[in-house]
């Protein structure tokens, strides 16, 4: 626990520095962090943009209960597919929605471009910090004092889905460390199957692996961004998977493709290291394997370790220029902590709540039939506590993902290594930051 505390403290220091750098772009009219979040007079209509399926029905629930604060639901494609660009266009045109869904890895981009309102002074917001899983709260505050830029919505703690029946038949123990995972991969390969695939397009999955290894991809010293894609911890992860690729122990199937689903369905791949929302992906992609899957914690770098990474998750942010930050903050708090709202968002949109109390909802304590009656969400709740709280995203993640993914593709086809991909991504990220006049250390 001591180490966790130290980590948090470092994170806070790092991220507040980050915020200072971000503030250089801030306009002078921004209200001081203390105060200035008063309720509006009379009834208010807010707009809220989100792409989570079924979110409109959660909003309808709020509208029923709050006649004076009506929320108009807006939607679009998922963030990186167009909605983030729309937010930036709207902020430039001065007619942004009051609230928007923003994934954690995109928040720094909005912060650096001054696209977020600080709602720390709004009633109930600062007090809510203990209601959310620690790492998610540090994502929305950037560690700044008196600052909250969004309310955490959902998270994606990572664990390991595996075919319990196949492991048992083959007499292979379920791996608990990465070393054992590698040994299991060799035994599985000997049977003509793969332990998993290396996903070239899911660079944020790879970031989740680095995250678990207590690595960083970005840091900030108060003035400059420091890009660390090739930090020691990151390289350690890259080398591990590179060896798996070199020895033919992992497949190159692109995640979420038909072939990939089929490989799970036919037993050609035995495990998937993935986030909590992956439970639905396997259930729908591999229907013939019902009852055979189980979930275990991620393999650890050290035996007996208690670390997990995170893949995905988003927040509800109040966008710059909102006329009603107070009401918007109230809605965001309700949306992400009200039990009824969270249950509905999980049922219709598959969201796993970032709220601590959310993890104890009936739906997350029930036996999962597809997983042989295992209470899989207990494993994820534990993983959620194990997620290292100080991971920092860069301000140009879309670009970083694209460039690293290109390199991963080359590595999978034998034209280079994962480390080459990270090295190239490191340089192109530095170039991209410079191109946007964001100070960066070389």
């Amino acid at each position, binding site marked *: 626990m001591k180490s966790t505390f130290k980590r948090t403290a470092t994170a806070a220091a790092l991220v507040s520095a980050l915020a200072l750098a971000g503030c250089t772009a801030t306009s002078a009219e921004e209200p001081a962090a203390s105060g200035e979040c008063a309720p509006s007079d009379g009834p208010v209509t807010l707009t809220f943009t989100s792409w989570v399926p079924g979110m409109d029905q959660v909003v309808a629930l709020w509208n029923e209960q709050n006649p004076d604060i009506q929320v108009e639901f807006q*939607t679009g*494609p998922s963030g990186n597919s167009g909605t983030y660009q729309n937010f930036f266009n709207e902020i430039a045109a001065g007619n942004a929605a009051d609230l928007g869904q923003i994934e954690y890895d995109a928040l720094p981009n909005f912060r650096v471009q001054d696209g977020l309102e600080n709602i720390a002074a709004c009633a109930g917001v600062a007090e809510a910090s203990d209601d959310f899983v620690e790492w998610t709260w540090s994502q929305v505050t950037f560690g700044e004092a008196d600052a909250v830029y969004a309310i955490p919505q959902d998270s994606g703690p990572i664990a390991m889905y595996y075919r319990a029946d196949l492991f048992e038949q083959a007499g292979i123990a379920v791996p608990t460390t990465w070393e054992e995972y590698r040994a299991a991969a060799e035994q599985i390969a000997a049977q003509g199957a793969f332990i998993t695939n290396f996903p070239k397009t899911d660079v944020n999955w790879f970031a989740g692996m680095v995250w678990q290894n207590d690595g960083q991809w970005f840091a900030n010293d108060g003035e400059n961004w420091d890009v660390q894609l090739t930090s020691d911890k990151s390289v350690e992860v890259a080398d591990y998977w590179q060896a798996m690729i070199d020895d033919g122990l992992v497949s190159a199937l692109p995640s979420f493709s038909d072939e990939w689903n089929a490989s799970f369905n036919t037993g050609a791949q035995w495990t998937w290291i993935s986030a909590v929302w992956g439970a639905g992906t396997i259930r*729908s992609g591999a229907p013939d394997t019902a009852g055979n899957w189980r979930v275990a914690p991620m393999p650890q770098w050290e035996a007996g370790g208690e670390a997990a990474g995170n893949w995905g998750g988003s927040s509800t942010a109040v966008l710059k220029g909102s006329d009603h930050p107070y009401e918007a903050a109230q809605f965001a708090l309700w949306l992400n902590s009200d039990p009824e709202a969270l249950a509905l968002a999980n049922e219709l949109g598959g969201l796993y709540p970032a709220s601590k109390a959310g993890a104890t909802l009936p739906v997350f304590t029930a036996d999962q039939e597809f997983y042989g009656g295992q209470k899989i969400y207990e494993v994820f709740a534990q993983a959620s506590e194990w997620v290292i709280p100080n991971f920092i995203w860069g301000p140009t993640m879309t670009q970083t993902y694209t460039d690293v993914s290109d390199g991963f593709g080359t590595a999978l086809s034998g034209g280079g290594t994962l480390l080459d991909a990270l090295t190239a991504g490191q340089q192109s990220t530095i170039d991209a930051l410079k191109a946007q006049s964001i100070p960066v250390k070389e």
Partner: protein
Amino acid sequence: MTTTQSPTAHTRSTSSRKGPMRENVLSRSAAMLIMGVFTIYFLTPIWWLLVSSTKRRDQFTSTAPLWFTPDSFVAFFDNIGRLFTYNDGIFGQWILNSVLYSGVGALLGTLFAAMCGYALAKYRFRGREVIFNVVLSGVLVPATALALPLFLIFSQIGLTNTYWAVFLPSLVSPFGVYLSRIFAAASVPDELIEAARLDGSGEVRTFFVLGVRLMSPALVTIFLFQFVLIWNNFFLPLIMLRDQALFPVTLGLFAWNSSIGQNPDLRLFVIVGAFVSIVPLIIAFLSLQRFWSSGLAAGSVK
């Protein structure tokens, strides 16, 4: 003349009896082969789409991708039913929106293009060529490049996220104006307009009674062009619209497709929806195909 010409004609006809005949068979089968290959190339994705829409979700990965399953027929109508009832039948709304944007937009767009082209062809006024050249240069600017400036303008007047935001820009068709002008110049004789004027017909009436009828093949071409253009226009609605009740079907399907991770059921709806969304285009083409080809040829030759 006749004496020198007939032997030549004779030799040509004898040689043509062998040469072109062989050439015919050869070039014809070559042409058929190439067309066959392209037909397969273009139709395979549509075939896949049709076959895939007849499968249940768990059959995507476990059955042959290009052939039906025994219960395809039932599954197809079941899928269609679920597609149109999912999320309070929002998909039907999207199809309706697309038909509205494309149908009304193309109809009015064609009318404006016809009027503009007719005026440019039949009236002489100062600056006529300048206007025509400006319109012509509009053909060169891709619609995608205009979407963001349009968003900023519509933001100023508070029309973003409304029906008008997609509808108004759809009314403009520089290519239609160009085609109309060329076609009006060629197919509407000045004498006829003169005669109409002498008979006491007003200019507007002359246009609708004479011009529109004589230009109708070109107008159908413009209508089809514009219809397909608006139907497939994705970027403008993406930037302009937030209310899903206003989405055209292209944007709606794209939004669904990007949320498959959260709700795997959507995968099925995207595939079946994509299939349903091309049906109106196929109908429009098949029913207006006759006019389409004749209009296009007429415009380009004259």
